[in-house]
């Protein structure tokens, strides 16, 4: 890699906004060959117009072709790569260094994003929304709570990524070792487990005792509903043990569809 990079020139607001907007469509042409590659080129393209010769110039075309080549990462953290790659192209870094950086970043940006977002932030915010549902919140509250909470993390991560990518350039990898990024999945994981435990009885109770404004069991808090809720909770604990043991052989949703098909058939045949 190259030596430490100097402070970058400020990225024009309009350019930053154009790249940031395009980041939301970075997976628009996702495929099994180049994966996220074309999306990286798509998001970086507005900034590459600043290369000598402008849009259509040789430098622009060579850089765009390079940036549209194979790349894979978590879609939100790809913003780090876009910011860093644009900086490297505009700084005129040697192509070999840029290629090496692209190859090196795929793994870390993928695994960190998967742990932080897909296995952490998404289940956490979904469980918070389910908790609100279980505690009796209305449809709008539940939806907005989830969307606002989730997207504070989502949009913030994309903005953080492009900012740090631009400032770090080809040395941005050090940013990924930040203690917050390394420790967050651990703490989020514990919060997710706690929330899961709290959510299950509350959601079971709400589904069985009342459905928002529409009572589905005769009278909220009826003994029939409570007995059913206790039975459902015990059933869920037993079934989840079976599902955990089935892991590797069958996914939970596949087991669920078989169980529901059996329930439907039983109800029809009875």
């Amino acid at each position, binding site marked *: 890699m190259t030596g430490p990079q100097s402070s970058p020139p400020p990225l024009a607001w309009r350019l930053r906004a154009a790249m940031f907007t395009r980041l939301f469509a970075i*997976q628009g*042409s996702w495929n099994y060959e180049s994966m996220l590659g074309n999306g990286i080129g798509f998001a970086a*393209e507005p900034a590459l117009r600043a290369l000598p010769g402008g849009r259509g110039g040789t430098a622009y075309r060579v850089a765009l072709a390079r940036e549209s080549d194979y790349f894979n990462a978590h879609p939100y953290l790809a913003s780090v790569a876009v910011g860093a790659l644009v900086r490297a192209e505009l700084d005129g870094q040697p192509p070999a260094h840029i290629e090496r950086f692209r190859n090196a970043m795929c793994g870390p940006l993928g695994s960190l994003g998967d742990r932080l977002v897909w296995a952490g932030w998404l289940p956490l915010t979904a469980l918070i929304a389910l908790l609100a549902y279980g505690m009796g919140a209305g449809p709008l509250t539940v*939806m907005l709570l989830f969307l606002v909470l989730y997207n504070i993390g989502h949009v913030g991560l994309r903005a953080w990524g492009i900012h740090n990518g631009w400032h770090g350039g080809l040395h941005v990898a050090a940013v990924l070792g930040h203690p917050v990024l390394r420790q967050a999945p651990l703490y989020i994981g*514990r919060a997710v487990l706690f929330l899961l435990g709290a959510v299950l009885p509350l959601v*079971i109770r709400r589904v069985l005792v009342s459905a928002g404004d529409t009572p589905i069991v005769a009278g909220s808090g009826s003994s029939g509903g409570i007995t059913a809720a206790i039975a459902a909770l015990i059933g869920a604990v037993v079934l989840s043990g*079976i599902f955990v043991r089935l892991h590797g052989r069958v996914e939970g*949703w596949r087991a669920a569809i078989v169980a*529901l098909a059996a329930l439907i058939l039983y109800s029809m045949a009875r």
Partner: protein
Amino acid sequence: MTAPALLAPVLLGALIGLDVVSFPQIMISRPIVAATLAGAVAGDIAAGLLAGAVLELMAMETLPVGASRYPEWGSAAVVAGTLAAVRAEPRSGALVVAVFAGIATAWAGGWSMYALRRLNGIWAERMQPALAAGSWRAVVGLQLRGLTADLVRAALLTLVALVIWRPIDAWLLSRWSLDLVVSHSILVAIAAAAAASAIWRLGHGATGARWYLLGGLAAGVVFAVLQ
């Protein structure tokens, strides 16, 4: 459902299906949002939320990781939310059938996303000379083509699923014999088990994982009793 009545859920399913991967991934495609919106469009937002909450538990397992093939819960939740909301009053078995239709649609949706990704690959290969030459028209064109194809994919998936499932739903419910409480108890137990096993597999390696889960369970039970 009549053709005009199908229009709104199909448009919603298209937009929500697009959100799953392509644009903008703000998670309006999560079942708890998508099914609730579908319920609102079909005239019963509470029924949509109910279906969405159950499907959300089922969807906890799905990590939309890169090249893996996974169920497409967005358009599927629109189908489930619509089916749950279209009848005037709650009926025994309605939620079970709506959720079942949702999972089946999610499974089909996973295959449709796989097909779309293959199609994107074919288009990218055909445009390779232009992409290698650094043509911005090729880069932007490929991206827009993929986005449009995903929108069409999600619309068709929602349309086909609703056309298939509406009569099946009516037929199944006309023969449904199980009591409402029993139906919902079994359904929510299955959904909760799917969520619990999924989250446990993700987090069981953490120190004290069992105690965090049990602590939450105790808090949830206490709160449910006090409610």
